[in-house]
């Protein structure tokens, strides 16, 4: 550890330069969001006189949509983990005959374009009265979370030693009890990873917001931004302030749950 830094600094400088290039768009929306309303388009390279009016406008116009996105995302996390955790446990630990078929089905879901789901759900939701509803969006948005959470959780739960579970059974715990008080606590990290990704998937969803809502009543922030740029191209500071606000969860989770994000990226893809 002591030798490496002395040799490594040139690489660090190159790395910082590359990162600065990659993250420039993020800097640029932050910069734009802090410009005054009028001259945004010719705004400087640096917000020397930060102006928060963009944020005020954004919160006034889009605050409700941010809350909607939060409700839908949290709902989807609860639903996805609630469905995925028991299924992942069964697929990992019980030797059931249909396991491979279920796993194949889960793999196939990854190939289904969202537009196919939206196409069919639109008419079904019209009949069921689920258009423009929180429940409708939560159910549709979980199409990303459920399969992903099963994949992540199953690959972790397979590594729980059988002896641990059998020991709990010997101690007299029922199946449900073992699941609740042994399997779930042991899988804490995998559960957090699955929750973080499900949250981000749902928060970022655009397609279902676009197709399964038709009125203002339930409008996620992504759709709010999309319609904002259509209508308010002269108020770029407010548009950009909204995009910054919509990026907060991603940035926050990157800081708080960094380890889980890297783990999710790799295990979700290869396993």
């Amino acid at each position: 550890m002591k030798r490496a830094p002395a040799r490594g600094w040139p690489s660090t400088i190159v790395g910082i330069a590359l990162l600065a290039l990659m993250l420039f768009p993020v800097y640029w929306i932050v910069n734009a969001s802090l410009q005054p309303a009028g001259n945004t388009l010719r705004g400087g390279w640096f917000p020397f006189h930060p102006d928060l009016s963009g944020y005020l406008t954004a919160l006034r116009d889009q605050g409700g949509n941010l809350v909607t996105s939060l409700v839908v995302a949290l709902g989807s996390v609860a639903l996805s983990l609630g469905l995925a955790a028991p299924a992942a446990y069964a697929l990992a630990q019980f030797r059931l005959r249909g396991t491979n078929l279920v796993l194949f089905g889960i793999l196939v879901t990854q190939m289904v374009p969202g537009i196919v789901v939206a196409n069919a759900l639109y008419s079904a939701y019209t009949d069921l009265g689920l258009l423009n509803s929180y429940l409708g969006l939560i159910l549709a948005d979980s199409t990303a979370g459920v399969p992903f959470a099963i994949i992540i959780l199953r690959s972790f739960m397979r590594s729980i030693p059988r002896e641990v579970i059998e020991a709990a059974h010997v101690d007299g715990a029922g199946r449900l009890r073992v699941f609740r008080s042994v399997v779930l606590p042991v899988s804490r990290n995998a559960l957090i990873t699955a929750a973080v990704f499900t949250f981000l998937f749902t928060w970022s969803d655009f397609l279902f917001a676009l197709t399964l809502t038709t009125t203002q009543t339930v409008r996620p922030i992504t759709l709010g931004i999309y319609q904002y740029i259509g209508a308010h191209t002269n108020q770029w500071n407010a548009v950009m302030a909204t995009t910054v606000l919509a990026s907060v969860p991603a940035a926050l989770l990157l800081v708080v749950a960094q380890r889980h994000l890297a783990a999710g990226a790799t295990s979700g893809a290869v396993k």
Partner: protein
Amino acid sequence: MPSRSRPVTDPARARCWERLAQWMYIVPAAAYLLLFFGYPIAKNIVMSFQQYTITTFYTGAAPFVGLQNYSKILASDLFSKALLTTVLFTAGSIVGQFALGLAFALFFQRRFPLNGVLRSLLLLPWLLPLVVSGTAWRWMLDPDTGVVNAALRALRLSSSGIPWLTGTSQALVSVILINIWVGIPFNTAILYGGLQDIPRHLYEAAKLDGAGPLASFRHVTWPLLRPVVSVVLVLGVVYTVKVLDIILVVTGGGPAGATETLATQSYELSFQQFEFGRGAAMSNVLIVISLAFAIVYLRANRRARNV
């Protein structure tokens, strides 16, 4: 406690109950997947043979029209153009994401201070909502007021600026570049993971044999990374053919349909022209393409597991 003693006396029945209880863990998730993936797939196939339009929602009538939706789609100029755009968009995105992702992954193989911090910061573009990234790029690439053209003018690389989003040939290049930017972090993360799994001593052995960095990449890194590479590429294709958000936000399919892909076409047929039957037919074509790659993916995955 009669309910407890009965299973003991009848072991076959007890095993049956046991099985059933175990399946109850899977049933809710399986039911969800069937309702939200199985049903839509089946419904799409049925819809694609129907004249399913806005009137269907009022009258409930969706007459069967056989293959008419498919023949209409396949015959239109838009389809072949959208297909070509989809192929170019996917190929361009994948090649760019992979090459740059691999370069980043190799770079992060080095040991230097702040490596971990920089590597996780790199994930940010991938974590942002696509609508946010699309909006940021749309604004940066604006031909008149965008920062990219302003920089090009300031550096005297281009006096008039490049019509990034308004030129018919430039717009496709722009959305590909944006999608590459979005995909680099994911490629880097997975390829970096793959590189970390290669045993260090193999590099040392190659070095002892007199292999330079290029030779050790060709003979050590690449062959051992192959399984991960195939997974990354096929996953990339499967995810990229269905990309919709970026294109809708940045160009809306324009100018003059230059950035229409099969996915955006399907969206427009269904949700703007309310030709759900034709939209469904179009998205079924998309499924077939994805499925073809799914088979490749499964094979690649199996091979990866065997290695």
